[in-house]
């Protein structure tokens, strides 16, 4: 049956998550008519339960399960073994997407992240670039993105303490951050006993701890309450709307203009293109019926895996290898943050039960190019972070630090004493793209509609192992200084699916090596824009969302300014 042809709109946005749900706001304010297609539905605050099984173990059984029907596969190298395929997708469907339940850490990247390649060559020589890496400087500088970081921080609401306002360094913030035009819109989330313990230890080591920035209200903001610190924020939705997902910030603001039509339960299966290579709209399924939403411009705003997959599945005369893939770049330059943590066991209760994982202590002394890398065997580095919020299943599933059996009465006595006495330090390292890390379509595994799922080909390079080991040593030093009596380090292994997945539709000036241009528009299909971390060329050492949102706003602004040349 032919799809139902809907009336044409100015812009169709595919995916109303952190990126798409943000970009709609500047677009509707400019008077453009937007249709937002979202695979999931709406949630109310009362849908968000303090329930670890539901949120963290079973990953939202009450949500639309599209993502869980399309879980990518992963393998360790082109000829390597498969990596475990989880039962649940790390991201979710819903109006607001995974910003409904993310940790809400809202860091900016730094000047260095945008030009890691040229800065590394300048300071350490070309041989310092890891072998096989396809890293390029971004086509955007920090200075160009700064106004958009600022817009996003104020539009959604970010709590934090600036360390560098127009060059004035404030030691109560992050002294390593790149310069910003003004202070955060809200003060940082409050301190807590354990966070303060770690901050004091860092200061004794002469490091520079700070409260990490979070898209969570530390004080009432935009007519919504301050955080209740109830302790189910990580993978949990906020029951009081204090977490600033796009579902409670930019999407309702955009809807209030009357220019945004949200279409929930719309499962996009392809983007159509004409023979000239221009995209014409999106095809989607809703309640088993197929629709075609024509649009002058298409903004693809799914998660990294899904952006790549939709492009590869959208074949046409103009794009026989998949949309915007005539240069064979879709899926390449994939990377993710490694899972890198060090657990410390303390001889006293840490009382981390409540709070949020965005509340804690962080430091950047060993991140980016903040120290001399001569001889260390890697470029970049890591951010170190300790957080509040230890939910009970997670707390009891602790390492036994070699001190007890893993079950039975001995284990029970051990967790009785120690489940509240351990904490992880997370060490997110900067990762870089490599020629043999990529996304494509799995040749065998399909979703229930019969479309192949995305496949990850990944690995762990020696430079990444070196960076992870280096950061683990710093994490151990920090924990021991704070009083930890035992340490357990996560193994250095490649990971498959990640909530921090980058690349696949990389942004860059050269169409031979990038899918989108400096503004986020396809080098091949001029009226196709791509939003999300899939456009990022390096990961940075921090959570991606704020950068994704700043880029999304910038792409939207460009579209508004260049509407005639892009859309007509």
């Amino acid at each position, binding site marked *: 049956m032919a799809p139902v042809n809907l009336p044409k709109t100015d812009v169709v946005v595919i995916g109303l998550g952190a990126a798409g749900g943000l970009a709609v706001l500047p677009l509707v304010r400019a008077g453009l008519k937007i249709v937002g297609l979202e695979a999931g539905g709406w949630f109310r605050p*009362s*849908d968000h*339960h*303090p*329930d*670890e*099984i*539901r949120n963290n*173990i*079973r990953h939202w*059984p*009450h949500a639309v399960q599209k993502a869980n029907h399309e879980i990518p596969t992963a393998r360790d190298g082109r000829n390597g073994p498969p990596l475990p395929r989880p*039962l649940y997708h790390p991201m979710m469907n819903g109006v607001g997407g995974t910003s409904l339940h993310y940790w809400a850490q809202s860091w900016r990247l730094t000047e260095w992240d945008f030009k890691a390649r040229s800065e590394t060559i300048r300071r350490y020589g070309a041989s310092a670039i890891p072998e096989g890496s396809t890293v390029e400087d971004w086509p955007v500088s920090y200075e160009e993105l700064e106004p958009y970081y600022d817009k996003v921080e104020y539009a959604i609401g970010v709590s934090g303490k600036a360390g560098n306002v127009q060059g004035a360094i404030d030691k109560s913030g992050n002294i390593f951050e790149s310069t910003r035009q003004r202070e955060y819109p809200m003060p940082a989330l*409050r301190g*807590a*006993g*354990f966070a303060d*313990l770690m901050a004091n230890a860092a200061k004794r080591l002469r490091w520079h701890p700070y409260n990490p920035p979070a898209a969570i209200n530390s004080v009432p903001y935009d007519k919504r309450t301050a955080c*209740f*610190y*109830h*302790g189910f924020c990580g993978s949990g939705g906020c*029951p009081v709307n204090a977490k600033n997902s796009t579902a409670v910030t930019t999407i309702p603001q955009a809807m209030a203009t009357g220019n945004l039509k949200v279409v929930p339960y719309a499962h996009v299966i392809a983007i159509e293109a004409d023979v000239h290579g221009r995209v014409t709209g999106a095809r989607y399924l809703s309640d088993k019926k197929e629709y075609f939403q024509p649009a002058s411009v298409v903004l693809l705003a799914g998660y990294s895996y899904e952006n790549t997959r939709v492009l590869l599945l959208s074949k046409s005369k103009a794009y026989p290898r998949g949309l915007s893939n005539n240069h064979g770049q879709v899926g390449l330059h994939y990377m993710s943050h490694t899972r890198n943590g060090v657990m410390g066991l303390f001889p*006293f*209760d*840490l*009382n981390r*039960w*409540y*709070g949020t994982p965005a509340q804690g202590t962080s430091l950047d002394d060993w991140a980016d190019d903040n120290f001399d890398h001569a001889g260390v065997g890697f470029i970049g580095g890591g951010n170190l972070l300790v957080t*509040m919020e230890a939910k*009970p*299943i997670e*707390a*009891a*599933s602790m390492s036994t630090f070699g001190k007890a059996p*893993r*079950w*039975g*009465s001995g*284990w*029970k*006595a051990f*967790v*009785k004493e120690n*489940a*509240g006495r351990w904490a992880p330090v997370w060490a997110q390292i900067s990762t870089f793209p490599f020629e043999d890390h990529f996304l494509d379509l799995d040749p065998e595994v399909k979703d229930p509609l019969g479309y192949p799922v995305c496949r990850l080909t990944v690995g762990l390079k020696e430079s990444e192992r070196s960076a992870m080991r280096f950061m683990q040593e710093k994490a151990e030093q920090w924990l021991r200084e704070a009083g930890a009596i035992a340490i357990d380090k996560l193994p250095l292994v490649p990971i498959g699916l990640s909530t921090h997945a980058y690349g696949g539709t990389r942004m860059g000036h050269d169409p031979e090596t990038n899918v989108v241009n400096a503004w986020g528009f396809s080098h091949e299909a001029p009226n196709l824009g791509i939003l999300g971390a899939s456009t990022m060329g390096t990961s940075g050492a921090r959570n991606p969302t704020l950068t994704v949102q700043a880029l999304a706003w910038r792409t939207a602004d460009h579209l508004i300014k260049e509407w005639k040349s892009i859309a007509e």
Partner: protein
Amino acid sequence: MAGSAATIVCAFVPASALRFAGTSTPKVLTPKERHCLQATVSRIIPADANGPGALEAGCAVYVESALRDAYRSQKPAYSAGLAALDSCAITRHGKVFAALDVAKQNQILSDFERSTRVGEYADSAFFFEMVRRHTLEGMFGDPSYGGNANFAGWDLIGYPGLRMYVNPDLERLNAAIPRSRVSADQLLHGSR
């Protein structure tokens, strides 16, 4: 079978609607499988001087309820693993696993944990880790799923319980925090 209608319904209702799952009579496992599961969770977290164990806290009920809906795809792995435990027990000692004394049960589980090949059954370590993980979920998860009866799990590790609003004092080191002793459903909708 009787359980399949419930399976389909459960897939579309929110977990909060399943608060009676723990008190109904789940019929996913055979009586033999259920006895074996009960003995296994008892060894993973035994009742002892430190309080109730996994069986007393309802972890076997938790697992069986889950196998009826959220974990129904893992039911074959449970049936195979529980059969392998019984088969190993019979081969070694002439009795099913649940009928063995604690030391013999522990030895068999320990062999499973270390991935010892048990007859034709090759997934012993996988099975052990799965049951251990699910036992911990039952013990320390929200009581509405059938485990953590009387908050036995949360009391064991000193988890002070669910609160909607957390005063800053409750995040200090050494804070003395009264136990709240409510499930998520009770917190959101009041006591029942």
